[in-house]
Each structure stands twice: as C-alpha cells, then as structure tokens.
C-alpha cells in the first residue's frame, strides 16, 4: 500500500509538464550519446551539470537519469551495424548482433535490442521500487570471496565462447588477463608491464581493446577482397525490419535472464554492466537448446546482454539511493550531482525525500516507454546505413572507431593502442583464435585478481575462505559445472560412437 501511494505521488511529480519535458530531453540525449561510441553518459552528465543548477532538482535528476538509462538503449546500435562497441556493456552485443546484421537481419537485431532494453529496463525499475532495501542488504553481504566466485563464473564462460579449439580460447582469455594487469598495482604501487610508458600506469582502457579487436579487425578482414560485394544485405519492407513473433518467442527466457542478472549484478558496488552482460549471455548460451549456433547471429544472444545492461541501471541505483554508495562512474557523478544540489544521498535519502525518489521511479517507467517509442522507428532508418557501398562504409567505421577511442581520454596514445589491438585482432582472426574470450579475460581480469587478493588478505592466507561461504561456494561450483559442459559433450559423442561400434 505504501508503495502504491508512493508511486501515485511519484507519477504526480513525473507527469508535471516540466518534468515530462526534462524526461524526454534526458532520454533523447541519452539515445544520441549511446549511439556514438566513446562519448558516454558520465561525460554527458558532467557537461550538463552546470545547466541543472537553475532547475528544479526533481526535473534535474529525472533528466540526468534519463541520459543514464537512455544511453543503454543506443549503445547496441554501432555494435550491431558496425561491430564497433559503443560502450563496454555492448561488447557482448557484437557477438551475435553483428552476425545478424551480416545475414541481413540488422533490423530484427536492433528491434530486439530496443524491446529487450524496454522489458528489462522496466523490470529493473520494478526491482528498484519493490526490493531496494533487501537487495541493498544482500549487496553488502557480498564481499571479496563472492566477487572472486562471480568473476570465476564469468571466466568459466570462456569455454562457451570457444570456437573449435578450447586451448586457443583459454589462451586468448589468459592474454586478456595479462592485458588487464597492465598498470600500477593498486595494492603495492608496483608498475606492471608498462614498458616505461606513463600512459600505461593507469592501465589499458577496455573500450580501446574492444574496438581494435572487433571493429578494426573486422574492417581489415573485409577489405581483403577487392570485389566490392554488398556484404550486408538489407531486406526491403518494414516487416522484415522488425523482430517476428518467432523471434520474440525465442527471446522469452532471454528477457527474464537479462532482467534478473542485470538487476542483481548492477546492485553490487563492484559489479557493473559489462559483467552483467557477459554473465547473461553466458547463461543464455549455457541453457539454450541451440547452444552451438551462438555467435552466428542468434537473436536471444542480443536480447540477453542488452536486457542485462538496461536492468543494470535500476540495480545500480539501489546502492546509490538506499546507501549513498556509487558502484560505477555514472552513479558516482549522479551522486556528485545530488550533493551539489544540496541533498545528502545516504540511508536516509528515500525516507526524507520521498517525492524525489518516487518521482524518479515513476519517470523511469515513463522514460522507458518514451525510449521504446523513440527507438523502434529509428530501426529501419539505421538499417539503411548498411545499404551504403562498402568503400563508403569502411572509412566511416574506421572514423567512428577513432573518434570513439579518442573521446574516451583525448589522448593520441590510445589511438596507437587501437592500432596495436587492431593488428592483434586481425592476426587472431587469421590464426583462428576467438576474440570474445580475450575481451572477457580483460573485462574480468583486474576485478578477479583484486577479489582474490582481498579474499586472501581477509582470511590471512587461507584459501578455504573461497568455499566456506555459501554464495561463493555455489557460484564456484557453477563455474566448475560450466567448465565441464564441453566435457559432457565430448563424453556423449564418445558414448554414441562406442554404441555404434559396439
């Protein structure tokens, strides 16, 4: 009842014409910055912060949050169309999204991304509204051993991302771990693998590697052929540009999976949308009856990670609003914004400012609807990008990649790194090493090492801490189970062969 009353009040706030307008401005801006690689929500919110000083705080937080979750909608666009991940959370979307585009199904891929974002985004807000306090408590009980188990589970998914050779997939993942440890070690301030470059002291940006290994390598492979075939067929007619009923049916589990994983991982201060999207993709693949087709353009391979990275927004707002603890760059700047407006985000924020909280929640329901309405008509429009002749499309992809990398840090050094990783990605393609495990290792490596070292510091060196705690024990067993999946496959094949021969 209390929730219903709160929500009604919230809608009263959110439906005020001014706030409705700010909500629209926020989601529109979010969509735009989401589509452009590099320019992310933190930078956009930081730029707009000065403008919000003369605004009503409710309108301001509604707009800034709109940028935050709106950007998640747009993030998949360049992943699907160009294999250029717009932000770290949409790296996984490249795997099946870009393959769908290559098969002429860019429209359904973009469409399902918008629909999954809407469904999971709404579930994320529902979670924020209904279970924020208990989830916050759960997040606090999550400590380093649990994070280590979570990252191990994520890394175990490598075997699911493997191509023909598990050994090569593992090697790629390990090289990812290596790249992740470049920089100053947080615990000891030791410089590791920096080759004397000061730019490497703070490590290598995930987006730089992902754009190099995916987008640059893809362009290089495609430029091998002189004959300029239309590589990416785009079917005519609006009907072929949106997901079919069958597509939606295929994605039923992906919607649930993405929503739940995204929300839970998002609520962890050390979680984040990258891990959420990888985990939901892995889970989707692990339980799918057509597991072996993942990576060739399967629609639920787009829906699950896109859903996860949107419901992550609702999750990430849980520790921010109930505890005043930011988990990611974007929530950190939202926290700074709240402080600048004179609020004190913390455990007492919601009880003391119910109108603001409920107004925000209600605006997020409205904003998600706006985003769906805004994004679906854009699908046919964006799908037209692929009608471009290749001699126009490839320079465009290269340009977008370079701007995307440069806008992250404004440094030419990162562009040099982009070149290095582009070449690496190409060589990996030629030598039949899968690139997804490399990205996965990179995404999880730093957090995994930290969590392991933190755990062992907490237990004074006893490894038993990793298995004596229930949540981490369960997750580690799951990781082992996932690692065994291909063995089962092999075992089964061997048994069948034995039966035939017998």
């Amino acid at each position: 009842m209390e929730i219903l009353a709160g929500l009604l009040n919230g809608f009263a706030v959110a439906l005020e014409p001014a706030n409705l307008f700010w909500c629209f401005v926020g989601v529109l801006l979010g969509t735009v910055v989401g589509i452009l690689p590099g320019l992310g929500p933190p930078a956009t919110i930081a730029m707009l912060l000065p403008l919000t000083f003369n605004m009503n705080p409710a309108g301001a937080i509604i707009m800034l949050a709109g940028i935050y979750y709106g950007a998640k909608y747009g993030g998949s666009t360049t992943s699907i169309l160009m294999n250029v991940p717009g932000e770290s959370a949409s790296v996984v979307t490249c795997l099946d999204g870009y393959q769908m585009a290559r098969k002429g199904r860019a429209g359904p891929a973009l469409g399902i991304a918008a629909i999954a974002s809407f469904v999971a985004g709404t579930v994320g807000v529902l979670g924020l509204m209904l279970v924020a306090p208990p989830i916050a408590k759960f997040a606090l009980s999550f400590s380093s051993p649990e994070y280590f188990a979570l990252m191990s589970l994520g890394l175990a998914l490598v075997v699911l991302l493997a191509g023909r050779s598990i050994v090569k997939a593992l090697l790629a993942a390990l090289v990812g771990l290596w790249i992740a440890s470049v920089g100053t070690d947080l615990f000891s301030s030791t410089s590791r693998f920096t080759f004397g470059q000061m730019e490497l002291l703070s490590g290598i940006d995930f987006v730089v590697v992902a754009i190099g290994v995916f987008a640059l390598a893809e362009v290089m492979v495609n430029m091998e052929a002189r004959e300029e075939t239309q590589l990416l067929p785009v079917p005519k007619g609006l009907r072929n540009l949106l997901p079919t009923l069958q597509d939606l049916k295929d994605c039923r589990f992906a919607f649930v999976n993405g929503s739940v994983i995204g929300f839970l991982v998002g609520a962890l201060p050390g979680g984040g949308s990258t891990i959420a999207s990888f985990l939901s993709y892995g889970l989707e693949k692990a339980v799918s009856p057509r597991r072996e087709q993942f990576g060739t353009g399967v629609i639920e391979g787009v829906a699950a990670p896109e859903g996860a990275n949107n419901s992550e927004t609702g999750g990430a707002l849980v520790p921010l609003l109930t505890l005043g603890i930011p988990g990611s760059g974007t929530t950190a700047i939202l926290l700074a914004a709240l402080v600048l407006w004179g609020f004190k985000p913390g455990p007492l924020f919601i009880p003391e400012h119910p109108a603001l909280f409920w107004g925000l929640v209600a605006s997020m329901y409205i904003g998600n609807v706006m985003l769906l309405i805004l994004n679906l008509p854009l699908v046919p429009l964006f799908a037209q990008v692929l009608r471009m002749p290749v001699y126009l499309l490839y320079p465009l992809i290269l340009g977008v990649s370079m701007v995307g990398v440069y806008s992250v840090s404004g440094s030419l050094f990162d562009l040099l790194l982009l070149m290095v990783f582009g070449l690496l990605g190409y060589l990996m393609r030629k030598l039949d090493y899968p690139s997804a495990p490399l990205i996965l290792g990179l995404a999880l490596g730093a957090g995994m090492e930290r969590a392991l070292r933190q755990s062992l510091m907490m237990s004074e060196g006893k490894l038993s801490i990793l298995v004596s705690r229930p949540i981490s024990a369960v997750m580690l067993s799951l990781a082992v189970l996932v690692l065994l999946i291909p063995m089962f496959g092999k075992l089964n094949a061997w048994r069948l062969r034995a039966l035939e021969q017998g």
Partner: protein
Amino acid sequence: MEDGTRKSGDLWSGLALAALGFYIIIQASQWEYLGPDGPGAGFFPLWYGVVILGLSVLLIVSHLRRAHDRGNPTDWSRLGRALSTWFSLAVAVALFKPLGFVISFALLTYFIVAVMYRRPLATAALVAVATAAGFYLVFDLALSVPLPVGMLGF
C-alpha cells in the same frame, strides 16, 4: 581454405605465446609473491604466466604430432590488402598531430576509395571531403566531442 595458414600458424602463434608466458613469468618473479598482508603484485601474473606457457606448449606439441598436410598456401594478395589498410590507418593516426583529424581522415578515405577500391578520383575526392566534413559537423560542432587538432587549428 585457411587450413594451411592455420596449422603452421598454430606453431608460430604457439611459440609467440610461449615467449609471452616466459616473459610474464620472468617479470612476475621480480615482484613480491607473498607480502605481510597477503598475495603481492607477482602472485596472479606468475600463475597465469605459467598457465600460458603450459597451454602454448600443449598447442605446439599437438601441432607437431599432427600430420603435416599443407593446405592452401597463404593468399598474400589478400593479406597485403588487409595490411595496407592497417598501414594507411597508422599513417592517418601519425598525421593527427601535424594535420589534425579532419585532413588526415579525408586523406585516409581518399586512399581507401581511390586506391583500395579503384573508384574514379573525382568520386574519391568527393567522398573524402564529404565524410571528413560530416565528422567535423557531427562530432566537433554539434556534439562538442573534441577531435584531434593539428597545427592548423582544426
């Protein structure tokens, strides 16, 4: 099709990765393995270095044990096209500092359209100017995303 390159590729990439694993182990052994409070900076790298070395040796051995049926030879012209794409991009990045993004990107586009895809020079020039101007308009002017600036001030 790729079988030939792939098989000898397994050998060479295996050797490269073994070298990487060895390098990581050497580096990591110079850092603290266990400190007073817990694992040090060398702990994690040492372990993945050892695993990289082990797996790459496995890759090399399994390559050597396989029959050496050489498949198709490497298609050098395809490889050449891919590498010249990479090289032209590298030149463009190197030109960012003196010439700025807009001019370098126009040159890159011109090279790809005119040389790599053999389009008429006029088409190439048009495409190059249009895309470079488009990037400048969209990113620099409309969205104020800074692009690399050259000595000419744009």
